[in-house]
């Protein structure tokens, strides 16, 4: 574990982004996770994505459940409000928070135990509702915090550190998210920063339910031979269907890719996701085709990564509920309370 305190003072020459923050301003407290834990790499990717996207840290609300993965919001975005809620229930808390103030950016961080076991119901329903959020599952196939029991995403036949073999079939969160109507679905690997950072950026800019399944090896309990969530296993079986570059609406669009292998996805906010296609037959806009593709490739033992599905015209929960543009938490008495005259009319109708 690393307990070394970071120096507080910023180096004056650290580069600043457009909103005047350095990369360090997006960091949090020192991680107390195991050295080498995949989760820390995901935190670093979140820091980089937010820095590069020029997001003001205080405009982000980070929410989590319980688990090693759910502890990570302490380790990034130290100037954002955070909420370490209860095991498996981050989605409902995030949904409520989002309803209260639609203007903030909601980052939900969870684990495979948190989201695929105890919290699978809440996961399902917040995706169904199209809550505008980035939902990241840091997927290690085990319960890290409670010391290595199998989680529901552990593949059938995979072996625990103590040698037990998992006989249950795995919950595939990507397949679930697709089926439930998530409008941005990606899978990546904590060890692949080049792929992960742009995927997070794309998810942040997406207006709707964005789900990222990030395979994140647990070095303490699930990084051995026989595990299908170890660094080695994922490096060997990773089938990236595309690499994306995230182009902010403010940046000039340059074309330095081979035509034919590049596809551009324009999001409603003007940002562009430039997909470098690695699998020629992959179309991330056709939900059914995506589901089939994933099933076929997974049956071959491949772990498909990349931007798997995106609907650039997504609507979110606020659109479904037709709520006012102003955040609900800012409405005052005049906007909310109908007053005594109306109450007298109501009384009169009750006599």
């Amino acid at each position: 574990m690393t307990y070394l305190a970071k120096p507080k003072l910023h180096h004056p020459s650290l580069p600043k982004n457009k909103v005047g923050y350095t990369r360090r301003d997006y960091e949090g407290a020192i991680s107390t996770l195991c050295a080498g834990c995949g989760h820390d790499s995901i935190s670093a990717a979140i820091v980089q994505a937010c820095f590069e996207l020029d997001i003001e840290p205080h405009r982000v609300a980070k929410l989590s459940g319980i688990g090693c993965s759910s502890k990570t919001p302490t380790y990034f975005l130290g100037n954002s409000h955070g909420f370490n809620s209860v095991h498996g229930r981050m989605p409902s808390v995030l949904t409520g928070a989002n309803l209260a103030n639609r203007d903030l950016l909601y980052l939900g961080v969870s684990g495979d135990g948190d989201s695929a076991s105890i919290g699978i119901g809440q996961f399902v329903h917040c995706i169904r509702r199209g809550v505008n959020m980035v939902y990241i599952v840091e997927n290690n196939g085990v319960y890290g915090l409670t010391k290595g029991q199998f989680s529901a995403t552990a593949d059938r036949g995979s072996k625990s550190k103590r040698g037990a073999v998992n006989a249950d079939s795995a919950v595939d969160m990507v397949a679930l998210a697709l089926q439930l109507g998530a409008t941005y679905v990606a899978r990546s690997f904590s060890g692949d920063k080049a792929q992960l950072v742009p995927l997070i950026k794309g998810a942040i800019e997406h207006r709707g339910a964005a789900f990222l399944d990030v395979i994140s090896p647990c070095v303490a309990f699930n990084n051995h031979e026989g595990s299908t969530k170890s660094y080695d296993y994922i490096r060997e079986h990773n089938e990236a269907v595309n690499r994306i570059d995230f182009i902010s609406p403010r940046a000039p669009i340059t074309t330095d890719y081979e035509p034919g292998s590049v596809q551009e996805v324009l999001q409603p906010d003007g940002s562009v996701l430039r997909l470098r296609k690695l699998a020629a037959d992959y179309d991330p806009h056709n939900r059914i085709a995506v589901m089939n593709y994933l099933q076929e490739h997974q049956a071959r033992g491949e772990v498909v990564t990349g931007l798997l599905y995106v609907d650039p015209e997504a609507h979110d929960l606020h659109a479904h509920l037709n709520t006012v543009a102003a955040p609900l938490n800012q409405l005052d008495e005049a906007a909310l309370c109908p007053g005594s005259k109306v109450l007298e009319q109501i009384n009169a109708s009750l006599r």
Partner: protein
Amino acid sequence: MPKQIQRTNDFVVKFANVNGSGSASANELFAKAILRMGVPVSPRNIFPSNIQGLPTWYEARVSEAGYLGRRGSVDMMVAMNPQTWDQDVKEIEPGGYLFYDSSKPLPQSKFRDDINVIGVPLTEICNREYSDPRQRQLFKNIIYVGVLSALLEIDPAEIEKLFSEQYKGKEKLLASNIKALHMGRDYAQANLTCPSGLRVQRSDKVGKQIFIDGNSAAALGCVYGGATVAAWYPITPSSSLAEAFGRYCSKLRVDKETGENRYAIIQAEDELASVGIVIGAAWNGARAFTATSGPGISLMSEFIGLAYFAEIPAVIIDVQRGGPSTGMPTRTQQSDILACAYASHGDTKHVLLFPEDPNECFQMTASALDLADRLQTPVFVMTDLDIGMNQRLCAPLEWDDARQMDRGKVMTREDLDAGKPFGRYTDVDGDGIPYRTYPGTHPTRGAYFTRGTTKDIHAKYSEDGAVYVYNMQRLLKKFESAKSLVPAPVLRAGDSPSKFGVIYFGSTSPAMDEALDMLAELGIPVDALRVRAFPFNETVDDFIAEHEQVFVVEQNRDAQLHKLLVNECAIERSKLLPVLHFDGTPITARFIVGDIEEKLRLFNVTPIKKVAS
């Protein structure tokens, strides 16, 4: 000839109906017509289940004296459900009346010879008049209201006026309803002895009072109190509260220019999610509530503890019912008191409010939103099926337009810019209540991390025992502060000094009012204290101290309020005597008086007069 009960403005009519037959609106019409004549009525729905075709009852007590509690026993049964005939006939008081549909002859053995039987061939009349089966069904109900208006001397003009309000602009419907009403009246006047021994006589005891169910009133309290987020999962008897909130919001909370909503309602996947949504919304500065019943409280427990420890406002309206599963749960009880007072794990206790009627449902839900923000903690509004799902006569709802939402201790961007120090769990004011910030307030100050137990006064992660103890003590101090913020108990002193006291709360109120009058008449003056909130105000301790014996009247088996008093007040346990009613029917004055009389015998107190039943 059996004797005939003679009562004016003081009797009980019970309707035995089949669910889904359209009887509910006819029965309400009956009650409202009597109210319009200035005579108080308190109706109660008894519905073993909401399934179409199964039995339901509607018991209306007419009481000029204004006693709105359930009386017990029946003076007239309107027996419209063959399935429950035997049971319904049995319930009638000797000398009472049985009104039934005589279209099909029934054997003599189906009747009793100590009651007065009034047969009207309702089906026959309907079949003759209407060909459409739906019309036959609906107008049959109106025809029986017509018959009753003749039997009980209800002014038909009042019923017609109610029709014309209901069917404004729908002249055809209006005319056909009036016709059906008179068909019933004409039949009764031609063939029956009218009036019967039961009569309604115009009076002036209703005045400005309104007739509303507690769930609707509570929903209005949420609208007026500024709730913008509601999350719920359907459960009887609370569902109609969330539904009423939606109905009122769609009228009162839509932006006129844009057509957009100033509210968000989520029918969640379960109660865990409902309360999670409420907590998330309140953490983020919106006023939020959920409505549920006992089973929902059990599911919410873990989250309730989190909100207590993390100090997040949440309003939970518990419309109590009888226990798990189905069946009894569609009956009323006050049996979630302990479950809510100490809900969750670790050391927790919560603020409870006990409304007595719809008017207080309105007031207390609005106050609960203020209290939750002020105290940064879950606040429970403990209603029950009896108040929640029955229309009840009560004082008109009032709102002071100068009233502002009390958002509690929230630091703004301006406060932070002005350099006010911020420590999320610091007791700055000495009342145990810390300051909070909403997410997104300030670019560099005021952000904090919310977690359950393990944090210091600056919300930094800490597993230090001393830090934990400090925080837990502060939460106790906050609970002390709550005592003076919650609604105070209401004292009703007896006419003469008494060594006996009675403590009661919530929906027991109308039965208790009547019981106190009955006890006074018996020569047993009793002082009464209606508790309106937990934590208990000091006056509760004082009241117990001032009396030799104090009865604690409640509608549950385990004497839950009694236990809470023993647990939380510095009092002698032996002074408190539980009076417990928990068979699923609303408590009656007769029950209370009977039980208290019996207990008093142990103290050698004998009534000087006998109660007339």
